[in-house]
């Protein structure tokens, strides 16, 4: 793999039948990991097991995997039927067996009326199904997806996403899916592995990773608009609450927010998601702020605030949204907040 290590010290255990999403920005190593599992890239150290079989040095075709690429990589001069059966024919399977498998896959994916068509005559969704069909006929145990929806426009993307989720329910197969789109990750995954710099930052159910991020990177990567970070200090612990101060802003957080016992005083970063911030009329016992920008989103509004020099985003659903320049009070649901160490970026 060259002199640069793309993946370091990575341990991953995938459960049977789960939909695991590898999520991360470009260059984080998620594609490399997927290609390694597929056998398209050789590993320098370590091992890969699929089921009980050690497949570290096994050819891709013998790993019992199927892979769907961003471009679907269908053989353009062959019909759908031939696309699905070509690999089997090359492997020398008897004609009856091939026909049986193609038929079964085609029925499952509703490809029957399309069997004679060429890829160029298919829609995006149909192509995706053919690509999956190709993996199905090989009786793959694990399905790998390499950013299959990245090239599509928004509407098609949501539609195919739903089809995919449906398919996973019907097939119950193990699926590993690579994407940089956190919405895809959240909606499709049974577990999400957030990656950065060749390491898995956190792995868990989408809700878990969203609500209890392990570090600032994960917290900031999930959620749109992203989480608000307020830099300040922990000023004291007392009983079951801790005090946080950032300039004139003071907050008191419940102990449950912490993952580890926190030091008594230290620099800290408070993370609060926009949907946990609400606006109140100014003057009440809440921190004052000024509205700098309002983005109407149809179902809600994103309001950008300047709270004593710190920039915050809040999600507000109001029939009368605030205007630029309004002075409002800011209320935060601190039960759902997190605290991070500014140096290590780890969760406190």
């Amino acid at each position, binding site marked *: 793999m060259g002199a640069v290590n793309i993946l370091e010290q990575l341990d991953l255990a995938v459960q049977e039948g789960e939909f695991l999403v590898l999520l991360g920005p470009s260059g984080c190593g998620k594609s490399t990991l997927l290609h390694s599992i597929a056998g398209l890239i050789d590993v320098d150290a370590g091992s890969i097991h699929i089921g009980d079989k050690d497949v570290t040095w096994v050819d891709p075709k013998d790993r019992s995997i199927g*892979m769907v690429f*961003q471009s679907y990589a269908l053989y353009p001069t062959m019909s759908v039927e031939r696309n699905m059966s070509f*690999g089997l024919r090359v492997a020398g399977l008897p004609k009856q067996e091939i026909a049986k498998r193609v038929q079964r896959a085609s029925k499952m994916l509703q490809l029957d009326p399309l069997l004679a068509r060429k890829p160029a005559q298919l829609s995006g969704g149909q192509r995706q199904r053919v690509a999956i069909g190709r993996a199905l006929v090989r009786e793959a145990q694990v399905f790998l997806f*390499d950013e299959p929806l990245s090239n599509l426009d928004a509407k098609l993307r949501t539609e195919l996403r739903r089809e995919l989720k449906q398919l996973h329910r019907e097939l119950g197969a193990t699926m590993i899916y690579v994407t940089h789109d956190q919405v895809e990750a959240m909606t499709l995954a049974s577990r999400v592995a957030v990656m950065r710099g060749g390491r898995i930052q956190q792995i868990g159910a989408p809700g878990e990773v969203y609500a209890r991020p392990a570090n600032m990177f994960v917290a900031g990567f999930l959620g749109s608009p992203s989480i608000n970070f307020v830099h300040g200090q922990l000023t004291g612990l007392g009983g079951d609450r801790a005090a946080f101060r950032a300039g004139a802003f003071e907050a008191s957080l419940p102990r449950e927010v912490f993952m580890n016992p926190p030091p008594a005083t230290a620099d800290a970063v408070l993370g609060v998601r926009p949907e946990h911030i609400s606006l109140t009329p100014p003057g009440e016992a809440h921190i004052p702020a000024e509205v700098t920008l309002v983005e109407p989103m149809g179902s809600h509004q994103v309001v950008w605030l300047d709270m004593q020099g710190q920039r915050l985003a809040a999600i507000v659903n109001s029939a009368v949204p605030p205007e630029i320049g309004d002075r409002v009070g800011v209320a935060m649901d601190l039960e759902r907040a997190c605290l991070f160490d500014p140096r290590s970026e780890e969760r406190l």
Partner: protein
Amino acid sequence: MSSSRRSRGLRNVAAYAALLPMAVTVLLAYLGTMAWSVRVSFSSSRTLPVDNFVGLAQYTKLFETERWMLSLQNMALFGVLFIVGCMVLGFALAVFIDQRVKGEGVLRTVFLYPYAMSFVATGLVWQWLLNPELGLQATIRGWGFESFTLDWIVQQDAVMYAIALAAVWQASGLVMALMLAGLRGIDDSLWKAARIDGIPPWRVYMSIVLPMLGPSIGTALVLLSVGVVKVFDVVVAMTQGGPGLASEVPAKFIMDNLFGRANIGLASAASTVLLATVLAVVAPWLYARHRAGAKAGAHG
């Protein structure tokens, strides 16, 4: 062009004026001369054009002329050797170079440089190489292989092989370049998918890549075919049509009759036959490409 429907075209005097040279060229230099040639082929002109009509007399005479029939035979033989040789060698070169070999740039330069040389130079070099007394035959005999023979160029039955050899040497690089461009256009993920499907590389080339290269292959075939019909320079340079008339080709027959033997009626008939051959090959191909282009995208 992003117009979604066929735009009406902008009425502008300047545009018409600017295209006047092109119109003149097409109408006079191409269509006009072709019509003129065809007209002459129906007359009994010899040194100068004569304004009479003799029907198909020239054509009958043409196909009774041994020299013409021989030139057609030679062209057919040359055509097969040249096209097959170039396509096979060019494709093989492209495939092998595509295997991520070191020094790819140097190799490409080496395979393509003959195409930068004129056909005359190619003919002369190969004439020298195939010279029986002082060229390859003599050299290899000098190494001890007393019975080695490579005297195609002086053998009536084999001279076309010599010419084909020189021509393949010159033009294979062209086919290689065209094929390589096509190969490079194939998405990488296709290879990965084939690997996962368990398809061996040679099978990928045969069943997947080759069909995908259809357009490139079509282009190469048409270009080579046109070269076959036009072949003139290399014959003149290499053998002057000899030994005797053994390597006579239609283009040379026509030139000789036009300027040397002053029989323009006959020559025009021959030209018309040649023209018909070319059109038979090119017109359907151009039409097919035009239709494919129109279907693929409204670029006007």
